Every structure is written in C-alpha cells, then in structure tokens.
C-alpha cells in the first residue's frame, strides 16, 4: 500500500512538472511585451526598461521558469502586471469562492446521484426507472450556465426567493455565504448528478448480473441484501473514476457559472486577466486548477486501493 502510494506520488510529481512546463511555455510564446502593453505605446524607454526589470522580464526563459516554479512551491506567485499586487493574494481571495462552490456542487452531485441511481437500478424497467432515465437524459443535455439563468429567472425574479447574484463574503456568516452559493451549486450539480446517476445505475446493473450475486442469493440473501452487502461496493469502482473526472468539470464549470451569478471568483479573475493580457495571473490560475485536478485523480487512485483489495497485491 505504501509502495503504491509512493509510486503514485512519484507520477503525480512528474505530471505536475510537465504540466507546469506546458503552461509556462505555451503562455511564453505570446506575442508582444507585457511591459509595453501595460504602459501603453507612448511609454518612455527608461520607464519601460525599469518595469521590465521589476517584472523580471529581462531574465532568460529558463531562469524565469525556475523562479516561477520556485514561487509556486513557496506560494510566491509574483506580482500581477495590472493589479500591481501579489498574485497569491488576488488568487487566494478568489479561490475561497470558486473552490467551495465546486466542492459544494460535488457533494450535491453525489448526494443526488447515488440514491437516484440505486433506485433506478433496483426498480429496473419500472415507471420509476423510465422517469429517472428520461429525467437524467434531459439533465445531461442542459448547459449548466443556461440552467442557472433559468433558475434565476424563476426563483429570483418571479418567485423572489433569493437575490439574483453576488456574494456577501464569508465574513457575513457561514450560512449567509452558503446560501449565496446554493443556487449556483445546484445549477452546476444537476447536470453532473444526471451523468453520475446513470453511471451508478448501469454499474450496479452490471454488478447485479455477476456470478457472486447469484452465489449470495443461493446463500439465502434477499435481493435487497445482495444489493446492499455485495453489489454496492463492487459497483462503486467505476463510479469513483467518474467522480474524479467530474471534479475537474465542476472546477471548470464553476468558472463559467460565476458569470451568471456575478460571483467574484477565479472565473471573473481569469477572464479579466486574459483581456488585460495579465499573463502571470492566467498562468497561476490555470496551474492551480490543473494542480487540483491532478491531486484529485491521485486521491481517486488511492481510493481504488481502499475499495479493491486486489490492487494491493497487483501494484
């Protein structure tokens, strides 16, 4: 187990290094000089040179990559070209919105999908199953940002149950903040929950047709007992993979949904940064999200071993 974890940790580090290289050098090929962009076309050569020095633009590419990576590790992400303040501060400020939003949506996804998927599988072919399959088919097809707009239209404008957007900040109290994130999280979660419920259902149906389920029934287990004691944990293995993938979609989705609800998260930050060519911010946000995705997949790999004893020996 420890060996396996170390091996996976090794490949996690390699992935992170390669990802940082890809991100850094993709954004390095950008045409134009950020310093002249910031100062405008009429800038004095001396001021321009001073700014270039300040931003570290005069160093070689390798030096700049190394200093960027060192910064990533130590938490010093450099100074934003446009905000003129440390990137780590700006990002941290926004991260406390985007990350909770994605996690909140992930929790909702799992909480909705598991019971629905299990119900559909156990009542396979029934009216409930047909309704679940139809409903999830719709859920998979809905663009989440449009779904968010429709929810605003119905609940905020027509029914006036909540305000149409904005975020009061965590200082306003946990419940108040969570309330502001609830509708965005639902909008994010429902399409993903539809996918997960379908995966859960089909994985459970596959498992229920396995030989060992028949064995357990021959022992005298009822269908329900066989499902609970044998099928569920086996069915979880493919479901875990999908949950791992979904977190990356939820993080990306959070960036988009923030637009609908005027949430000052990473999404708004990165789109502003793009339009202002503030590449150091773009670099940092993308790296942060990729880091999150890679770490989640690492955790999913560890979870496999916890679920499936066969992997302990095979690895």
């Amino acid at each position, binding site marked *: 187990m420890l060996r396996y974890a170390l091996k996976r940790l090794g490949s996690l580090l390699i992935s992170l290094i390669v990802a940082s290289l890809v991100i850094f050098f993709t954004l390095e090929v950008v045409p134009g000089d950020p310093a002249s962009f910031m100062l405008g076309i009429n800038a004095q050569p001396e001021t321009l040179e001073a700014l270039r020095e300040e931003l570290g633009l005069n160093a070689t590419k390798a030096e700049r990559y190394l200093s960027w990576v060192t910064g990533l590790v130590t938490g010093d992400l450099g100074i934003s070209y446009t905000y003129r303040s440390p990137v780590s501060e700006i990002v941290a400020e926004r991260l406390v919105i985007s990350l909770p939003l994605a996690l909140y949506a992930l929790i909702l996804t799992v909480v909705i999908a598991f019971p629905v998927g299990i119900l559909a599988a156990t009542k396979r072919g029934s009216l409930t199953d047909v309704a679940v399959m139809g409903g999830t088919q719709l859920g998979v097809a809905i663009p989440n940002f449009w779904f968010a707009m429709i929810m605003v239209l119905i609940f905020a404008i027509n029914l006036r149950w909540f305000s149409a957007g904005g975020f009061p900040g965590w200082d306003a109290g946990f419940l108040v903040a969570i309330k502001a994130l609830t509708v965005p999280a639902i909008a994010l979660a429902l399409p993903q929950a539809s996918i997960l419920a379908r995966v859960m259902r089909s994985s459970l149906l596959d498992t229920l047709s396995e030989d060992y389920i028949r*064995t*357990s*029934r021959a*022992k005298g*287990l009822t269908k329900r007992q066989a499902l609970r004691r*044998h099928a569920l944990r*086996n069915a979880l293995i493919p479901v875990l993979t999908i949950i791992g993938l979904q977190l990356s979609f939820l993080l990306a989705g959070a960036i988009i949904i923030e637009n609908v609800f005027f949430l000052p998260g990473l999404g708004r930050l990165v789109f502003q940064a793009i339009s202002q060519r503030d590449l150091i911010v773009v670099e940092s946000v993308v790296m942060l999200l990729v880091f999150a995705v890679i770490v989640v997949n690492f955790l999913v790999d560890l979870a496999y071993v916890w679920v499936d004893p066969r992997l302990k020996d095979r690895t």
Partner: protein
Amino acid sequence: MSLLSISNLSLSIHGTQILERVSLSIEPGEIHGVIGESGSGKSMTAFSVMQLLPDGATCSGELRLDGQDVLHADEAALCAMRGERVGMVFQEPMTALNPLMTIGAQVAETVLIHENVSQAEAMRRAQDALERCELPADTFPMSRFPHELSGGQRQRVVIAMAIALRPKLLIADEPTTALDVTTQAEILSLIRKLVDEDGMGVMLITHDLAVVSGLADHITIMRNGVVVEQGEGATLYRDMTHPYTKALFAASSHQPDRTEAKADAALLRVENVTRSYALPRKAIFGAPKRFVAVDNVSFEIKRGESLGLVGESGCGKSTLTRAILGLEPLQGGVITLDGSPVLSGRQADLSVRRKMQVVFQDPYSSFNPRHKVGRLVAEPFYLLGRTATDEEIEVALTSVGLTPSDKVKYIHEFSGGQRQRIAIARALIIRPELIILDEAVSALDVSIRAQILDLLADLSKRFGLTYLFISHDLSVVRSITDRVLVMKAGKIVEEGATEDVFDTPHHPYTQALIDAVPKLPDLDGIDIGRS
C-alpha cells in the same frame, strides 16, 4: 418420502420451452447425477429447485423439497430455504466469490443470514465449514481474499458456504468443469466425504459421463429439456435403452479410426528450450525474479506422427506452443522445423512458419466476426505472399465437411462444431506439414468432439499430416496420439508411446494424473451400438 421430488416440471422463459415434464427424485445420502450436453436443460433444472431463474421464467408441475412446495412458496420462504436446507455450488469458481470480501466473511454470511448468532460465533462456524472443506486455518486464514486462492481452493470456499449450515440437499452445477483433472478428483472426493458425513442428498450436474460413473447412485440423462433415461448408477451403463444414451456413451469413449505412423525422420525438433519472464518487482532493490515457464525442454516429432502434450493449467504448454510457432523469444535452446530454426534473431522466420498452422480451443473467439468465411479461411496465404484462389478455399472447406457456398457466410451463422471445422480448414489451406491442435476439442460437447476427432484422423491419413495435440484431457489424448509427453511446471516429466504411458506410468505425477481421470465402466462385452 423423497428429499427432493420433482414431477412433471415444465419451465418456459419468455415463452420458450426450456424444460418439459421433467421428473426425478433424490433421497437423503444419495448422489444423483444429471447428465446432458449444452442446451439439455440440466442447469435450469437445478435453478428451478433454488427458484433462482431468469426474469420471465414460469414453472409448472410439482417440486417438493423435504415436503415443502417450492413452486408455490413466497420469496421470504424461499430465502429461508436457500442456504439453510439447499446449498448450491457453481461451475466457475473464479467469479463465484465477491472479490472485495474475505473468504471468512463470505462463509460466515451464510450463518448470519439464517441464524441469530454473534459475529464471532458465525466466524467460528465459518472456520469449521472451511476446515471440513480441507482449507485449514493455519495455511488458509479466513482473512484471505478470493484472488489470493487458486481455482480449486475457491471452489472449496464456495462449497464451504453451501454446506456451512449442513443443508439436506446440495446442488452442484458442473462443479469441476473449470478445474484441472487432479483438482477435479479432489473436489469430487470432498463431495463424497461430505455426503458420507452428513447424509445430505446431492444433485450433481455435469456434461461428463465419466465424472458421475462410480460416484452417482442414480443417474438422469437429459436432452433438449426432456429426461431421456434414468437408472441406478451402478447398472445404467449396462441397461441403457435410449439411443441417445448409447450415442452419448459411445461418443464419450470414442476411438477414432486411425493408423499408426511408421515414419522415422524428425519433423520438429525442440532442443533445450527455455522461456522465462521477468516477474513484477516485489522489492525496491535487487533484480526482479524470473518465472520459468518452459524449463530446458527437449523432444521431437516425427513426420506423420501424432504427438500428445498433456499437462494441467499453468504447466507451460501454451507458452511452449507459442514458442514453436516462433511467437515467443527464447532464453535458451533452439526449435527447428524440417531442419530450419523457427526464429531468425528475435523474429519468426516466415518461410519456416509456412510449414505449420494451429487450431485453437475457443471456436467463438477464433474468428474475426467482421470477415466472411472465405477470407477467414484464406488468411494463412499471407505467409505465401499471395491470395487464395476460389478453388483453394472451396477445396479446404469441402475437405472438412463444409460446402463451398459457406465461404460467403459470416462466422456467426455457424455452430461451435462447424466453427472448429472452419478453424481446421484455415489450418489446412496452405497444406502445412505440422498442425498444432491447442485444446482444439476441449470446448465441444462430446458428440461433436467425436466427429471432430474422426475428421482429424481422416485428414491425417489423407494429407499425411503431423499433429502436436495439446490438451488437459487425457482420454482425448489417449484416443488420438501415438506418443505422449507429460509436462509439469515447465518440464517434461515423462515421455513414451501413448499406450505404455497410460498403462504403466513411471513418474509419480503421471500416475497421479492418470489416477485422477474419471473412468467410464469397462465396455467389454456390451453392445452400445453406434449411431
């Protein structure tokens, strides 16, 4: 009153008739063999007793277990019955256990479901059941997971689950079909022992007449959902009346009509061949261990000869097959066909390969489902660097008993036996000298198997073919080979003329292997008829 009495049981699934007026009864302490080929309904009879039938199944007739009306019992009563009064053992031990649960917990579950006992007590009883199935705690602790056990050991766990509560009836559905012959003998004697200890009745379902002979007290023979013959185990073989029973019996002990080879020149020569693989590293430091699949093996096949290679799963016979075909690099030794090595460097020498072909075990995965038979059969022509003519394809198909028009069909239009004929046509089409038959008849029903063996004997005579016949099935090897090699753990442990090896085996392993083979009663003096 019988322990199990089935009378006029009919079963249909989604309107298709599966069983028709099946009647049989089992007494306590009796082993009742139910025999039939695929599609005979023997397994469905077993599942009817458990009432674990597929959706859409409807039963009629009467089925009583220990007096209880099973067909009209509700689900709760059936759950109470399963595991408590009837236990069941299945064919495929590799998939019959939950991979995520320890064997102890799985056996204990049978106890926990039916009796209101503590977890510790259930585990103690599970240990007890495992011990009775000869899985002692010191070598097989209950904390083992299924993947840590061999097929035979897993089957013992399944049996332990089935007998943990000492049921009155045990249903065993092809319990040894997936196992090696020595393991099969052990499992069968375990079942016998449990019957003698507990006095339970056993329904033993199998396709293999030899398995039940000498073991079953009663025998029922089924075909297409109907019981064709029933009788005492000791006398049925003498008293059988139904033509199907006779045909089945004849096919099981079928001896193809073949002439012995007299040639003396060696065609294939295997000299000191070793093939080993690196195992996955267990320790971080040190060189990885190597697994020696084929260990310094030498033998030769003479032109026109039929040589048998027998051994249990994992003995290295498949690796050896691939090595002969030049599909495996060797760590030592050399293989030559007609004087030329099959490998040139690490690559196979295709000019040598032309002289040999192979027929595989599984008639279902041997053919690309997207190609027509004509193209499938002609594939070996790639070795000759040209395509087959229509005539060559037609000749190949006709020589294996198919018609020329079959070449435009797809493979799914053929039965298992016909597919095996097509596989033989594919092997034959470029007129190789050596054909390797890798378990080529193992997946077939006995009556089809007899036909294919006849075909092979006939082709060998007509085309002067040399066969390397690889099988785990000793009785088949005995019927079709001149000489035999016995392989164990990568080594050839015995070699000799087939009759000599079977009659007077020298190596202890060969003796064990031959002892383990279930035998049909001697046929001398009985007219079983030929159909």
